[in-house]
C-alpha cells in the first residue's frame, strides 16, 4: 500500500497522555469493584523439598476465608507456557523459596494476613542447587536428567571452525559474567478476577500479553474459550516482566474467585514482587576467537550459559535469542555457538527487554575490546574492520540482503561524542570513554511469527471512528499512539479518527504477544493489511450504493476513485456514510515473506525478518576513593528503519539506555544461601535516580526496511543491549582495569583494582 497520510513521522500527543497526567488512568489497583475480596499466597520457605502437607491452625475461623491447594485444582497443575513443568501450586516437589503452596482469599487484608499465618506447611527439605556451577556439576539433579532446561548449537561445523582457527594469527579468549536484573516497572504486578454466572471467569490486570493469560487460564481451569475474558487494565510498565508472570497471578486470582464466588484482587506489594517475580537470567559467556594481526576476525567459538531458575518458563526462547545475538554486529567467517540454560532452585527467570541479547551482547562487545587491547588497536577501529555489511552472513546462515545500519550508527555516535579524539585521553582526570555497537532482531525468532499467525482487525465504529482491534497492549511504550498512527497513515485519516483501546480477549483477535519489539514492525504490518481490507470493503459498499459493477471503485493513494465516481478520501467517505458503514470490519493476517526461511530442526536460516542497530558512547567518571561511577554523558544512536513517532522513539531509546546503564552499573541483585534475593526492597535494589541519569544525546537514523510497515523496524528492546558494555569499556578507559563482570559496583571495581588487573604502568 502506498503511504497516504502524513501522520507517520509526526509527533502527536500520546493517546493516553491526559488520563495519565491527570491521575484518572485506572490501573488494576485503582479499580473500584463492589464485594471485592483480597487474595494472597502461602509460599515455601525452603529452596527444595517435598511438601508433605499443609495444616490449618484450629485457632483461626476458617469459615471466614477460602483456601485453595493443589488438590483443589480443576485442571492440570501447570502454568501453560513453553513447557508444562511449572506447577500452579506445589503438589509434591518444592523447587524454590517462595514457590506458591496454597492460596487464600479473604474479605479484608487483615483477615487474609491472619489466615496465611495460620497455614503451616510441612516441607521435608532436600539438597538444593543454587548456582550455575552447582547445576553444571550435576551432583544434585533437580530438573530432567542433567539440569539442562534448554540447549542449542548454532553455526558452522566444528571442522570448518577448526580450520578457520588455523588461519588465525592470534587466539583471544575471554569469559564474561552478568548478574540478575529486576524490571522494576513502577506499578507492581496485579490482577483482579471476577467469577461469571456461566462458570467462566473474567480477569483484568496489569499485563503485556492478554492471550498468554487467556490460554493459561483455559488450560488451568479447563474452560471453553468463550467462558474466559482477559482485559488489560492500564499497565504501569512491563519491560518483559509482565509477559509470563501475569499468567501465574491470573490463574491464582481466578481460582480464588471461583472458590469464593467473589471478585478477588491480587496486587503484589513491592517486596513480594521483588522476591518472587521473574528476573533477567544471569549468564556466563565464554569466547574463543581467532583473529588476524590486522584485527579482522576469522573464527569464533562461543559458549553461553544461562541460569533459568526452577522451571522452564521462557528460558528456551530467551536462550535462543541470546545465542543468535552472540556474535553481535560482527562478521565472522566461521563461527559456532553452543548454549545451555540450566535449572537452579531459585525463582524462575523470565522475559526481560532484550530477552537474552543483553547478556551475549555484553560478552561480545567486551570481547571486541579485549581483542583491540591485545592487538593494540582502538576499540573503534576493531569494530570498523569487522562490522556487518550488506551481503554478509550471520552464524545462523542468514545473509543480510538489506543495508545494515551498523556502520552508520557507529560513525555517527563516535562523531557526536568525539570518541576518536577523546578516547584514551581522559584517564588523568579520572574519566573514560567507552563504546558499544549492537544489533537486535525484530519480531519473534525463526518461524515464530509464522506460528503465531497474528491477526488484526479494524472496525468502523460510531461516529465514523475506526477502532483497531489488536491484542497489542499499551504499557508505556506507546502502542496506543503508534498503531493508530500506522492505521491513519494507511487510510489517509487524521489521527483523531482512529484509536486503539486496551484489548480484551472477548473483543480483539490474537495479534500475538506485546513482546520482542514486534508491535510496530510485525503487528503494524498486519494492521496495514487490515486497513487495505477495510478500504476494499468500503469500495464494494460504494459500488453497491452507486450501482456500479464490482471492481469499478478502487482505493489508491488515499483516494477512492472510479469511472463516473467522484474522488473521495477515506475521511470524506466516513463523514458522508458513517452510519451505513458502522460495523464494517477489515481483517489482516500475518503474511510470511516468501524469501525468508527458517529451519527449526537445523536451527538455521533467516533468524529475524530484519535487524535494528545501535551504538552508544558512554563517558564515566570514577571516584578514586569510593570506586563508584558517575555517568557524565551518553550518546545513543539507533537505526530503526523509520520512526513512526520520533518523540516516542527517542523516549524508548532514552529509557532503555538508562535501564541498560543501571544493569551495567548499580543494579546489584544477588541470592543468599537459600536462593533468596538479597536486594528485595527499593531501599536495597537501586535503580538510577534523576541525579544519576547522564546528560543524554539521542539520535535516530533511518534506513527504511521492506519488512515493516512504511519502512519501520523493531525498537523497544534495542536500547537495552548496548549500555552495559559501553559502560564497562568506559571504566576500562578511565582506570585501565578490564571489566568482564557486571554490575560494576564500587565493591567489584575495588576488588578488580586490588587484584592488580590493571594495565597501569607501574
Amino acid at each position, binding site marked *: 500500500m502506498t503511504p497516504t497520510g502524513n501522520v507517520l513521522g509526526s509527533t502527536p500527543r500520546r493517546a493516553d497522555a491526559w488520563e495519565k497526567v491527570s491521575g484518572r488512568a485506572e490501573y488494576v489497583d485503582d479499580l473500584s469493584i463492589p464485594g471485592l475480596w483480597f487474595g494472597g499466597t502461602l509460599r515455601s520457605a525452603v529452596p527444595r523439598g517435598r511438601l508433605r502437607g499443609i495444616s490449618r491452625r484450629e485457632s483461626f475461623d476458617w469459615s471466614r476465608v477460602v483456601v485453595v491447594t493443589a488438590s483443589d485444582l480443576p485442571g492440570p497443575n501447570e502454568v501453560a507456557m513453553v513447557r508444562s513443568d511449572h506447577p500452579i501450586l506445589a503438589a509434591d516437589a518444592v523447587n524454590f523459596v517462595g514457590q506458591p503452596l496454597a492460596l487464600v482469599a479473604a474479605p479484608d487484608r487483615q483477615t487474609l494476613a491472619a489466615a496465611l499465618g495460620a497455614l503451616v506447611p510441612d516441607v521435608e527439605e532436600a539438597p538444593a542447587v543454587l548456582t550455575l556451577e552447582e547445576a553444571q556439576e550435576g551432583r544434585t539433579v533437580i530438573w530432567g536428567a542433567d539440569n539442562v532446561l534448554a540447549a542449542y548449537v548454532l553455526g558452522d561445523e566444528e571442522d570448518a571452525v577448526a580450520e578457520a582457527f588455523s588461519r588465525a594469527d592470534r587466539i583471544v579468549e575471554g569469559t564474561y559474567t552478568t548478574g540478575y536484573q529486576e524490571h522494576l516497572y513502577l506499578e507492581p504486578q496485579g490482577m483482579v478476577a471476577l467469577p461469571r454466572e456461566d462458570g467462566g471467569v473474567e480477569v483484568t490486570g496489569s499485563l503485556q500479553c492478554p492471550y498468554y493469560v487467556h490460554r493459561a487460564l483455559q488450560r488451568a481451569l479447563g474452560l471453553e474459550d468463550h467462558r474466559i475474558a482477559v482485559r488489560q487494565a492500564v499497565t504501569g510498565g512491563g519491560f518483559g516482566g509482565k509477559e509470563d508472570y501475569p499468567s501465574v497471578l491470573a490463574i491464582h486470582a481466578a481460582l480464588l474467585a471461583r472458590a469464593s464466588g467473589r471478585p478477588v484482587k491480587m496486587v503484589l506489594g513491592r517486596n513480594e514482587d521483588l522476591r518472587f517475580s521473574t528476573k533477567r537470567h544471569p549468564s556466563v559467556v565464554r569466547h574463543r576467537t581467532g583473529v588476524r594481526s590486522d584485527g579482522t576476525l576469522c573464527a569464533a567459538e562461543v559458549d553461553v550459559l544461562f541460569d533459568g531458575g526452577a522451571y522452564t518458563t521462557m528460558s528456551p526462547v530467551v536462550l535462543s535469542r541470546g545465542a543468535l545475538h552472540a556474535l553481535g554486529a560482527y562478521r565472522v567467517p566461521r563461527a559456532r555457538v553452543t548454549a545451555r540454560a540450566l535449572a537452579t532452585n531459585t525463582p524462575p527467570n523470565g522475559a526481560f527487554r532484550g530477552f537474552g541479547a543483553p547478556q551475549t551482547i555484553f560478552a561480545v562487545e567486551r570481547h571486541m575490546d579485549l581483542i583491540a587491547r591485545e592487538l593494540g588497536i582502538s576499540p573503534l577501529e576493531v569494530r570498523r574492520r569487522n562490522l556487518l555489511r550488506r551481503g554478509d552472513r550471520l552464524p545462523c546462515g542468514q545473509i543480510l540482503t538489506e543495508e545494515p545500519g551498523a556502520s552508520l550508527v557507529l560513525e555517527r555516535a563516535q562523531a557526536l561524542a568525539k570518541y576518536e579524539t577523546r578516547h584514551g585521553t581522559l584517564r588523568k582526570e579520572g574519566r573514560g570513554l567507552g563504546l558499544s555497537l549492537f544489533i537486535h532482531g525484530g519480531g519473534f525468532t525463526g518461524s515464530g511469527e509464522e506460528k503465531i499467525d497474528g491477526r488484526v482487525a479494524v472496525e468502523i465504529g460510531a461516529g465514523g471512528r475506526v477502532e483497531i482491534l489488536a491484542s497489542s497492549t499499551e504499557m508505556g511504550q506507546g502502542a496506543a499512539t503508534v498503531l493508530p498512527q500506522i492505521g491513519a497513515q494507511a487510510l489517509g485519516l487524521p489521527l483523531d479518527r482512529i484509536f486503539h483501546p486496551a484489548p480484551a480477549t472477548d473483543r480483539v483477535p490474537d495479534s500475538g504477544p506485546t513482546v520482542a519489539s514486534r508491535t510496530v514492525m510485525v503487528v503494524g504490518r498486519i494492521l496495514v493489511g487490515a486497513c487495505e481490507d477495510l478500504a476494499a470493503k468500503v469500495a464494494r459498499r460504494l459500488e453497491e450504493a452507486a450501482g456500479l459493477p464490482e471492481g469499478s471503485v478502487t482505493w489508491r493513494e488515499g483516494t477512492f476513485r472510479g469511472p463516473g465516481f467522484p474522488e473521495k478520501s477515506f475521511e470524506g467517505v466516513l463523514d458522508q456514510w458513517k452510519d451505513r458503514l458502522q460495523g464494517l470490519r477489515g481483517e489482516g493476517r500475518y503474511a510470511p515473506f516468501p524469501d525468508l526461511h527458517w529451519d527449526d530442526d537445523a536451527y538455521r536460516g533467516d533468524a529475524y525478518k530484519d535487524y535494528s542497530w545501535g551504538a552508544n558512547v558512554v563517558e564515566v567518571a570514577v571516584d578514586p576513593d569510593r570506586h*563508584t561511577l558517575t555517568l557524565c554523558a551518553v550518546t545513543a544512536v539507533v537505526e530503526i528503519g523509520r520512526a513512526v513517532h520520533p518523540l516516542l522513539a527517542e523516549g524508548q531509546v532514552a529509557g532503555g539506555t538508562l535501564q541498560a546503564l543501571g544493569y551495567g552499573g548499580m543494579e546489584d541483585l544477588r541470592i543468599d544461601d537459600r536462593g533468596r534475593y538479597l536486594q528485595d526492597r527499593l531501599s*536495597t535494589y537501586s535503580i538510577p535516580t534523576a541525579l544519576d*541519569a547522564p546528560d*543524554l544525546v539521542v539520535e535516530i537514523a533511518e534506513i527504511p526496511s521492506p519488512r515493516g510497515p512504511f519502512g519501520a523496524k523493531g525498537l523497544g528492546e534495542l536500547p537495552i543491549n548496548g549500555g552495559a558494555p559501553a559502560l564497562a569499556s568506559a571504566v576500562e578507559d578511565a582506570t585501565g582495569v578490564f571489566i568482564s563482570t557486571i554490575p560494576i559496583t564500587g565493591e567489584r571495581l575495588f576488588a578488580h583494582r586490588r587484584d592488580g588487573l590493571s594495565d597501569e604502568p607501574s
Partner: protein
Amino acid sequence: MILSFAVNGKTVTVEGPPLRRLLDVLREDLGLTGTKEGCGEGECGACAVLLDGHLVNSCLVPLFQVAGRSVETIEGMAPQGSPDALQRAFMDEGAVQCGFCTPGMVMASRALLRENPSPRRKEIRTALAGNLCRCTGYEPIFRAVEGAAAAGYEVAPPPPAPEFRVTCTEEGRIAFFPESLPEALEILRQHPDAVPVAGATDLLPDLTRGGLPGPHRVMDLTRLEELRGIREEDGVLVLGAGETFASLGRSPLVRRLFPSLGECAASVGGVAVQNRATLGGNVMNASAAADSPPVLLALDARGVLVSGEGTREVPAKELWTAYRRTARRPDELLTAVKIPRPAPGTREAFFKLGPRRALVISRLTLVCAARLEEGRWRGVRIAVGSVAPVPHRLEELETFLEGRVPEEGAVREARRLAEDLLRPRTSREYRRDVGGNLVGRFLSSWISPR
C-alpha cells in the same frame, strides 16, 4: 479517631486509626486513586502529594498528623478538566510513558516550581531525585519542567486548611497532640509507652515491613514550637529537634558554620523525605545507618533531653548506647541538639558511600573535622556510621593525628589506621579501603593544594 483536613481545598472528615497511612486514606476512603503506591517505604515517590505545600510521600504520613492541614493531590491540578500548564508540558515533551510515576512526578515538579520558578537543570534533578521513573530516562521530564518554567508557570499557594479538630474514638489506640513542651512531658510522664512521632519516615516503613499494628499510644511532635528553631546562642548553634533536614539543608547558618551538617541534610533520602524527617527523629531512631549521628559525633554535639524532672545535656558520644538504643529515658524528650561553634580554621568533610546519588542508605558515613595550628593538626575528630551497630568516633586515629605535622607519611599511616579501626560485618575489605581513602582525602587537603 475522627479528624478533618483539606484535600485540594475541600474539607474532608475521616475516621481511622492514628497510624493509617495518608496514602490509604486518599485511595481507599476518598477514592483519590491518582496517588499511586510503588513501594510503601518512601523509596519511589509514586505516592508523592503536597502537605501544606511541601512534597511528601503519602505512604510515610500517618493520618493523625494530617489533622488541620492542607493536602494537594494530582486530582486537584486540573479541577476544570483541562490540563494545567505543567501537565501540558509533561504531555508535549514525552515525559509520560507508563504513567505510574507521573502523578508523583508532577507533584514534585509543582512543589519545585512553587519555590523556584526558574530552576536550573541541576536543581530539577535534585528536586525529582526521590521520584523514580523506569521508562523515560528522565530527560523528557527535565525538559517538561524546564518548558513549564520557561512558559512562566505559576503555582498558586496551597489552599487553606480547616481548623484543627480531632476526636479520639477507639479506646485502645490513642493519639496525643500536645501544644506545648510541658504538656508533652506530662503525657510522657503519665504514659511512658507513648511513642513520640515526628516525621514518621522510619516508623511507618518499619510497621509496614513487620506487618505490625504499631504502638498503642502515639504523640505528635509536629505542633511543638519548642522543638523548632535554628539559632546561635553564645557561640553554640542550637538546632530544634523538630527541624527537618530540608530546613537544616537550607539554613544559611548551618551551611556557614557546619558545612558537613548541611551536606548531610541534603544527602538524606530525597526531597520528600527531607521535608518530613527531623534531626531529632534521626537521632532518636538510632538506626545504625542514620545519616546525622556521625556528623554530630564529629562536631562534638550535645543532645538536650528534657523531662518533668529537668534538663540534661548528653554528649553525642553517650547518646547511642547500643543498636537502636539511646540514652533517652521514656519520660524524656529530645528537644534540641547543640553544637559548639568550631575553632577558627576548622575544616570539615562529610562522606557517604552508596550505589547512587540520592535515596541512599549509607554503607559508610565518614565525617572528619580538624584544623591547623602552628603547622600541626589540632582538634581532630573522625566519626563513622553504618559500619557498626552504633555510630562512633575513631579515637585511636584522632589521637594519632592530634598534634602531628601534615605530611605524606602521616597521611599514609592514618589511612592504614583507619582501615584497621573499621570492622564492618559485610563487605569488610571494600568498606575499609574506602574509609582509609576518604580519611586520606580529607587529610591530603592540607598537603597538596586542592
